[in-house]
């Protein structure tokens, strides 16, 4: 391979990585909000993403609704499913020890994941769109519109999330709850309402991620577990409960994985997140960007 060809190859893998990293970032941001504001470790987070993928598959692939409304419907559906999930699983474990939270949400994850296998079978489902099958050629490699869309929309979403958290009343209340629960309650913030809104935003982000990446990747029932674990690894590296650190760590993970798949092969790439996590835990016990819980 000539040096130029190698550089182009690196660029292509880096863009693939940026796409995967965008997906991780959307998923991890929701998890960071749940941990930061609700103080709940949710091990069913990745399974909710799987549910989002199937919701999109049904709306777009089976009902044949065009992409944009299908994506919006997926987000709405996930906000609703998130609200139900919050009521059944999350609310009872708020304020319990983290072991109870972990076991309860892991149990929910198992039920969701195996319920999906039971109902839908374990085969992956594909939903290519017009955007994912056409694209532009840059430096000699193809780049589908869907991939560009994923990266651009993720960037815009995080801009909106940042503005929401820093400028709006609700966003400020969420940050207040994450910083000091008792004091927030003391000044009259409705903790339960904030918890519900936080979880709905988190599920909405998952729905958005599902609608964006399902046309490029396939969906299958058991995909959630590995995503949850990677999301927690990323969260640990980025500083538990810190949204910004988590987003940076997620995008970094996407790029590292893509380069590793291109250079070494895909057999062991799923292990990278955990190796990064163990190294980070040894040298930065509070995460690279974090000191304590808080968004």
């Amino acid at each position, binding site marked *: 391979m000539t040096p130029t060809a190698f550089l182009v190859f690196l660029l292509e893998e880096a863009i693939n990585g940026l796409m995967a990293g965008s997906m991780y970032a959307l998923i991890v941001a929701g998890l960071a909000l749940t941990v930061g504001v609700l103080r709940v470790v949710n091990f069913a987070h990745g399974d909710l993403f799987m549910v989002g993928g199937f919701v999109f598959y049904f709306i777009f692939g089976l009902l044949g609704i065009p992409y944009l409304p299908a994506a919006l419907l997926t987000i709405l559906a996930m906000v609703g499913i998130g609200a139900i999930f919050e009521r059944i699983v999350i609310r009872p474990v708020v304020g319990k020890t983290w072991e*109870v939270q*972990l*076991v309860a949400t892991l*149990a929910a994850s*198992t039920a969701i994941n*195996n319920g999906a296998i*039971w109902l839908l079978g374990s085969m992956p489902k594909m939903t290519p769109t017009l955007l994912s099958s056409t694209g532009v050629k840059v430096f000699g490699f193809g780049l589908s519109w869907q991939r560009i869309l994923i990266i651009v929309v993720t960037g815009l979403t995080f801009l909106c999330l940042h503005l929401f958290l820093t400028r709006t009343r609700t966003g400020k209340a969420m940050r207040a709850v994450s910083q000091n629960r008792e004091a927030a309650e003391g000044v009259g913030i409705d903790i339960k309402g904030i918890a519900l809104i936080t979880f709905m935003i988190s599920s909405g982000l998952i729905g958005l991620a599902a609608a964006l990446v399902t046309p490029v990747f396939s969906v299958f029932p058991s995909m959630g577990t590995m995503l949850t*674990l990677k999301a927690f690894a990323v969260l640990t590296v980025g500083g538990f409960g810190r949204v910004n650190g988590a987003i940076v760590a997620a995008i970094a993970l996407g790029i590292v994985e893509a380069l590793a798949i291109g250079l070494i092969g895909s057999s062991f790439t*799923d292990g990278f997140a955990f190796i990064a*996590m163990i190294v980070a835990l040894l040298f930065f016990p509070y995460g690279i960007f974090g000191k304590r819980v808080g968004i």
Partner: protein
Amino acid sequence: MRKWLPVIVLIAVAICFPLIVRTAYFVQVLTLAGIYMVLALSYDMIVGQVGSLSLAHPAFFGVGAYTVALLVTETGVGVLPAFVAGAALAGLIAILVGIPSFRLHERSFAIGTLGLALVLQLVANNWMGLTNGPMCVYAIPALAFTLPGGVKFTTVSLTDAYYGILVVALGTFVLSFVVSSSRVGRAFHAIKENELLAEAQGVDALFYKMFAFTLGAAIAGVAGGYYATWLRVVCPALMGLPYTITLLIIVFIGGRGSLRGIALAAILCTILPEVLRISDSARLVIYGVLLLVFVLYIPGGLEGAIEGVNRLTTRRGGSPH
């Protein structure tokens, strides 16, 4: 003495079982229940007695199974030395992982052990040269030796395999009982209740946690070796999350830290899905929902129920306590 009566009756029933029920299938289901009992009791050492949530237990089971399988089929080492090697390797991995993880927050310990389990499963799945990957290691020789008195024991015989695991399970139960009622067990419980306070009393929490984690891992390694020589095939799925969930449900239904509750739950959770003949995914859906209900609303598990019944019967008997 009355306290031990149910235990003696249960052991007697367990010994007589294959003599009365001559269906090979049921003997095999109970052998599996025995393996789960060993696994759950050893898992409870770290989760129930010390109170650190490890999610790597099936990985130690898998390490034991693979070590025995590979040593025996590839290098021709005897089965019994391979067992020792399997248990030792599982214990060694526990030490290597435990030292860094225990220094961190408990939450990091849980996530770290889960990461370890996944990495080990990836190795078993992808290191084709060593483990044969998803094609599994097969044709593992059975465990066979001559007992003193000239009785030949071999796991080829289903009844022998059953009695073998019965001995291992009883041994694990007795060991767990001895550990939990000794000075070491009291240290475990002190750490579980309040680690800071225990340390202030001079209990070296890290040492005792490492001890429980390593001992539990080594016992899981033995169970894995037994599994390998019993079924004579070992696959990467052994280390998977479904086994972690099954162990969690056994420990939580039984009641964390309760040996009898866990032993009972291990038997129930193996027999019921077999008797009801439900598919694997349906079983895991039910386990998931049950685990959720137990952890949220019945935190005491079966142990809580047993104690409730005991309290009722003693009150009726007019005893002052």
